[in-house]
């Protein structure tokens, strides 16, 4: 493969770039979508393409480099014709992903993170791809492949060696099961598409807000902000335009409910967004789809088109003059932080996904600084159901402060991983029984930033009163090492820190270093004190929730599973931070010495 500065773009490619920019109306706020298309077409965003885009969009080329380098799935240098990313969530690891990756690297003769010399392939890891119920999983050129096995890895390596186009790979590789194990009011609904909207259009905007408020519905993304209150604040906020944004950047490791909702309940999602648009007075909506779910883009576009054809989107929806609303899908590109609503908005505007300083909040200053209602995929579904059922009936489900039902993404050590819908208030124990988990040691609720629940707390309940959750429910049985679980999560945070603020940018890397040091047998009690210090800094000074919660997995596992750490610590109060004798290896090699003086003992 040619080095990047020699991969010259020919005339037809330049024409294609020109058309792509025109398709996005030369609007630099659509930069991320344009870069996505360039990446898909050319395999990377070359220096020359960057120059052409900069000129056509009339922005500095440094801005393009700045944005592209923020997102893991975009590459400014050639990254192989086949770009393989193994999902690296702890659940993938528990299913053997590390050995599979090693196998693939051996089969294709390359090292993780490197591009093969012939430019054919690169292999690396990526954060959880949302296939924990059917892992180990990977992405090849952005396409999800599930249920990896040694057999499947061998087949994939062969297909890559043969340069078989992805379109010709066996369809079964790309099959994504829904794995719905338990349905409730959401997954079991029998609503016809448009049904809720018909009724709501008659009732009117004010009524929608009132019902959603009275239903007690709270956001399903984890934070649990009252949805009706948010919609009302957005509606009342002055602005040239109002916007509705659906947060489908489901990046919390272990969560995959939105994947299933967007597959099975896309109409209900869009129905909820349209209701919200009516309620807040928006004419434009976005669905921010995480890049890992790229395969859902075409089906979702088809649903949107059908809804336009049925006058459920577009001008004068359902004949109501002035009710104009349409939805655009914006594709993410591998950045967990974009699940944070203000970072998501920055990303929608074609920028680096860096969380904004708040206040002001998106309800008053969101997309393009206009009032914006950002809600989770599940929240929009629940809102539609609440409007359809009526506040009182909806409120009767769940608990006092957590009305309605919750989708739980179950993965890890259990017989039946998948999606379970329960009314709020369900206990951890009930879920464990339903999913066929035995000898369970702990459950991680709501992903790495959430809570680690040990066995003696299995009577705790899901709900905002006790265990708030975005939906991840990762099960660990007594064969699992909870230190390694925490270490995996710490690596995740270090990889996903946006780098904006000092504490998170540096602190997550320091934490990773400390956990690796303990894992390598160099840990001491001093390192546990270091973790405490890092936690104080991260919790108190980080810019957003990512940094503020990044120490949680360590603190929780330390609290409940301290021996998992202490067994690794040396009894000494102090140990060198690195392998002393190992750091003489280079010099031994260069001098050919191996005498006693050419070695250092770990301690004296």
């Amino acid at each position, binding site marked *: 493969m040619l080095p990047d500065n020699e991969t010259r773009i020919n005339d037809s490619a330049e024409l294609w770039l020109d058309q792509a920019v025109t398709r996005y109306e030369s609007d630099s706020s659509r930069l991320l979508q344009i870069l996505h298309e360039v990446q898909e077409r050319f395999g990377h965003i070359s220096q020359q393409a960057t120059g052409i885009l900069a000129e056509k969009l009339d922005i500095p080329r440094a801005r393009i480099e700045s944005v592209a380098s923020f997102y893991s799935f975009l590459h400014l240098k050639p990254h192989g014709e086949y770009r393989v990313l193994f999902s690296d969530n702890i659940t993938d690891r528990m299913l053997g992903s590390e050995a599979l990756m090693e196998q693939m690297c051996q089969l294709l003769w390359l090292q993780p993170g490197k591009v093969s010399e012939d430019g054919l392939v690169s292999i690396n890891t990526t954060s959880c791809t949302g296939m924990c119920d059917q892992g180990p999983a990977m992405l090849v050129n952005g396409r999800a492949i599930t249920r990896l096995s040694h057999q499947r890895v061998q087949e994939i390596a062969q297909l890559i060696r043969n340069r078989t186009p992805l379109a010709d790979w066996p369809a079964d590789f790309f099959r994504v099961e829904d794995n719905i194990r338990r349905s409730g009011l959401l997954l079991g609904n029998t609503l016809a598409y448009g049904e809720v909207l018909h009724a709501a259009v008659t009732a009117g905007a004010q009524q929608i807000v009132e019902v959603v408020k009275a239903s007690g519905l709270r956001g399903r993304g984890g934070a649990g902000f009252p949805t009706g209150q948010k919609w009302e604040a957005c509606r009342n906020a002055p602005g040239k335009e109002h916007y509705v944004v659906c947060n489908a950047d489901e990046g919390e490791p272990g969560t995959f409910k939105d994947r299933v909702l967007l597959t099975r309940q896309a109409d209900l999602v869009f129905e909820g967004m349209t209701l919200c648009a009516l309620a807040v007075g928006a004419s434009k909506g976005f669905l921010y789809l995480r890049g890992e779910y790229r395969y859902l883009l075409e089906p979702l576009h088809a649903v949107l088109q059908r809804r336009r054809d049925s006058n459920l989107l577009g001008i004068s929806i359902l004949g109501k003059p002035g009710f104009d609303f349409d939805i655009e899908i914006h594709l993410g590109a591998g950045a967990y932080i974009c699940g944070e609503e203000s970072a998501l908005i920055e990303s929608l505007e074609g920028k680096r996904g860096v969380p904004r300083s708040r206040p002001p909040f998106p309800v008053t200053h969101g997309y393009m600084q206009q009032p914006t209602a950002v809600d989770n995929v599940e929240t929009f579904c629940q809102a539609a159901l609440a409007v359809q059922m009526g506040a009182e009936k909806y409120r009767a489900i769940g608990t006092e402060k957590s009305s309605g039902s919750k989708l739980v993404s179950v993965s890890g050590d259990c017989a039946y991983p998948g999606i379970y819908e329960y009314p709020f208030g369900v206990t951890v124990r009930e879920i464990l029984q339903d999913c066929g988990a035995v000898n369970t040691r702990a459950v991680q609720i709501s992903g790495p930033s959430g809570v680690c629940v040990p066995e003696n707390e299995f009577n705790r309940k899901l709900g905002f009163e006790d265990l708030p959750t975005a939906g991840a429910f990762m099960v660990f049985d007594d064969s699992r090492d909870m230190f390694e679980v925490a270490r995996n999560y710490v690596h995740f945070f270090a990889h996903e820190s946006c780098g904006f603020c000092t504490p998170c940018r540096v602190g997550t890397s320091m934490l990773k270093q400390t956990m690796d040091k303990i894992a390598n047998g160099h840990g001491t009690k*001093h390192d546990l004190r270091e973790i405490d210090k890092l936690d104080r800094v991260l919790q108190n000074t980080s810019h957003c929730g990512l940094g503020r919660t990044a120490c949680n997995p360590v603190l929780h596992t330390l609290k409940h599973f301290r021996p998992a750490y202490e067994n690794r610590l040396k009894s000494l109060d102090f140990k060198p931070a690195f392998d*002393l004798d190992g*750091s003489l290896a280079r*010099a031994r090699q260069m001098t050919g010495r191996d005498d006693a*003086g050419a*070695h250092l003992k770990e301690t004296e």
Partner: protein
Amino acid sequence: MSKKLRVATTSLAGCFGCHMSFLDIDERLLTLLDLVEFDRSPINDIKHCGPCDIGIIEGGVCNAENVHVLREFRKNCKIIIAIGACAINGGLPAQRNHLDLASCLTEVYLTEPGLAHGHIPNDPELPLPLDKVHPLYEVVKIDYYIPGCPPSGDAIWKFLTDLIAGRTPELGHGLIKYD
């Protein structure tokens, strides 16, 4: 009068600049000698450190011998003070840390223009270099730090007198320096 505190000092991967600065406390050395007596130190040429109250070390850790000396100090001294930039963060010697040791050795001893019959020294008498230069605290526990390149005589004096008097050493504006 109570027993004098026993103090040892040494320089590892340093330039002895911190020691020179120590001598800059000038006539206060005499006052200090009323309070302390010296064990291993370049001042008296004692080669090995015995049991001490305070060990003062300048320079970072760049080779195997540095590790041995540092450990000897840690074993024998109740309090270890890292003095100067090199001891605290690697300092000048650590500027090689982003270079590969093998290519450093190759360039210096083998491929440097004008070098004839070069070879990388391999006498067992010589300490082997570590692949990176490390601050002291990465190898042993350090109790106190006096920053500066070098710290001024005044800073060293203030720090030591605080410590000897049982106060938490504080330098304050004008005495705390990283350069």
